């Protein structure tokens, strides 16, 4: 991207001034190298988002931004219903409430080493991964309605998890306002066999160890010390969320003109928050958020069973669960007053700072854990929201590395078997039903997550707390 097209507000803040139909300016947080490497489409898409009715503040893009659907991936935008604000299916994405959760194991790296193969096999046998894999839970209509309304809280009631888990999940594990009546028959059908499944693509379950601590005080509050072993789970709302995204993207694209909205790009499909379509989507999308939370909760349960089989008596505690494809009502100060805004985060993570009322007591002084997934074989990060996060982008930060090359290029460059062997020689056990999938997810097919995380820290979006490296990776 040509950086001369931006006004540089500070070292890591780049502005596209409001021009043409833009109602506000767009701001990209990145260092110079990341911005130069960023797709031109991010410029266009961040500008397009700034044209939507009722947008408040700025249209933001995070350091890992890349070409998305309507919104850039890594896009953040807040809308005020009182000012004709909209909700956008493209601004949430197909994988509604895709996210990451991190579990503390109480084990250290040395405990895992002699049992790593066995642990990898146990996890791979218990957690369904990849195309064609099915979960063991099949819900009837009433059961699915209860799941869509209750989220992780429903899962807990079914015996999947521990009471302490809930306060370590956004919205305490249950997104209010879900309306199962807005979830189509097709979306339900797609979810029929998929409860408690990991999915495929960039989704994974990893056993990792803390190999660097960047902020000892907060790391200690999070329960992270060098050498500690954790489990990170990255997945979303499975077929149900994908189908809801598909249906509402089309509906919003074709109904926008009826609401007097001129879409600069069809994929920016949206509807006024105060419209039938907008309300119906909010009800369905929130149900999909609950589906994702229930899904990660069930996978957590399966992970605990696998650990218990290898390390009897071992107790896995939830550090936190974040979603990075959402639209949620939140209270923010904008234009000098407190307002209820609908904050879209498409490939962006919430990053609430210390003393935010939504944080559980144990995390209130540290700020919210922000979980950033890297690629298989490289590293992941735990960050924390800061006091500055709120002012920068409505309390938001980056979400991951982003691809550096296409799946096809990756497949041409690497062979799955060789990657499994090479990572194995580095002490990283890979388990996957598809070697082609492994090749397409090769570590070097992704950008350097460290550069993204450093830029997020320098831009004041979040603070680096600890770096995690993989020991076992279950890939879909």
């Amino acid at each position: 991207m040509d950086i001369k097209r931006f006004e540089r507000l500070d070292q890591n803040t780049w502005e596209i001034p409001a021009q043409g139909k833009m109602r506000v300016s767009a701001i990209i947080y990145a260092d110079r190298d990341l911005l130069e490497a960023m797709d031109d489409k991010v410029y266009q898409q961040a500008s397009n988002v700034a044209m939507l009715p009722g947008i408040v503040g700025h249209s933001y893009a995070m350091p890992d931004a890349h070409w998305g659907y309507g919104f850039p991936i890594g896009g953040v935008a807040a809308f005020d219903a009182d000012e004709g604000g909209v909700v956008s299916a493209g601004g949430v994405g197909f994988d509604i409430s895709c996210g990451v959760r991190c579990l503390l194991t109480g084990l250290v790296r040395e405990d895992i080493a002699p049992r790593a193969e066995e642990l990898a096999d146990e996890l791979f046998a218990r957690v369904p991964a990849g195309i064609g894999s099915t979960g063991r839970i099949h819900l009837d209509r009433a059961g699915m309605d209860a799941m869509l309304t209750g989220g992780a809280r429903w899962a807990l009631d079914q015996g999947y998890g521990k009471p302490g888990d809930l306060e370590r999940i956004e919205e305490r594990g249950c997104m209010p306002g879900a309306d199962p009546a807005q979830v189509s028959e097709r979306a339900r059908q797609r979810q029929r066999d998929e409860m408690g499944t990991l999915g495929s693509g960039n989704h994974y379950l990893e056993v990792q160890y803390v190999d660097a601590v960047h902020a000892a005080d907060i790391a200690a509050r999070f329960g992270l010390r060098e050498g500690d072993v954790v489990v990170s789970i990255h997945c979303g709302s499975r077929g149900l969320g994908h189908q809801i995204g598909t249906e509402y993207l089309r509906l919003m694209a074709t109904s926008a003109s009826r609401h007097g909205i001129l879409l600069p790009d069809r994929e920016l499909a949206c509807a006024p928050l105060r419209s039938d379509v907008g309300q119906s989507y909010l009800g369905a999308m929130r149900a999909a958020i609950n589906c994702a939370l229930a899904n990660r909760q069930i996978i957590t349960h399966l992970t605990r069973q696998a650990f218990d089989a290898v390390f009897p008596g071992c107790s896995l505690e939830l550090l936190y669960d974040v979603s990075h494809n959402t639209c949620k009502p939140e209270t923010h100060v904008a234009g000098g007053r407190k307002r209820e805004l609908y904050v879209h985060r498409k490939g962006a993570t919430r990053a609430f700072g210390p003393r935010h009322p939504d944080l559980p007591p144990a995390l209130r002084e540290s700020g919210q854990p922000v979980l950033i997934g890297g690629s298989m074989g490289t590293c992941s990060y735990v960050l924390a929201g800061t006091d500055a996060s709120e002012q920068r982008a409505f309390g938001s930060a980056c979400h991951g590395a982003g691809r550096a090359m296409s799946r096809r290029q990756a497949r041409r460059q690497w062979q799955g078997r060789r990657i499994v062997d090479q990572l194995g020689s580095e002490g990283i056990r890979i388990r996957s039903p598809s070697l082609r999938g492994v090749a397409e997810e090769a570590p070097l097919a992704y950008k350097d997550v460290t550069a993204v995380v450093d830029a997020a820290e320098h831009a004041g979006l979040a603070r680096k707390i600890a770096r995690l490296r993989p020991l076992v990776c279950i890939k879909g």
Partner: protein
Amino acid sequence: MSEIQWEHLEHGADIGVRGYGADPAAAFARAALAMSAVVTDPDLIESRETVEVECEAEDYDLLLLDWLNEIVYQMATRNMLFGCYEVSIDDHRLEARLHGEAVDAGRHQPAVEIKGATMTELAVYRAGDGRWVAQCIIDV
């Protein structure tokens, strides 16, 4: 020399599909084949079962979107892969027969599941050489 029938488009995080044909129906069938090829090598998919589908839309663009999303739905709910598509289009109404088989992870090595077809780069048009082109980016 035979002409190219389908291809993949580069997209940062995802992938695009493009089918070529003498008429819209042929281009739609080959765009579908390109989508199957995102998941696995279409030559590995045997035609053991047939699924019949139909869709209707306001224009060719939306018809392509609905068609590809119909296949995504059939793949997901039937746990199948399709390697051969017979398509007919009358006005903006499509009828098709999808031939394929149940997913066999060992044999098919399915790389990635498709979440949905998107409106990004969505286009159905007649190219300069007279052939029809049907394309869009799909989210994986």
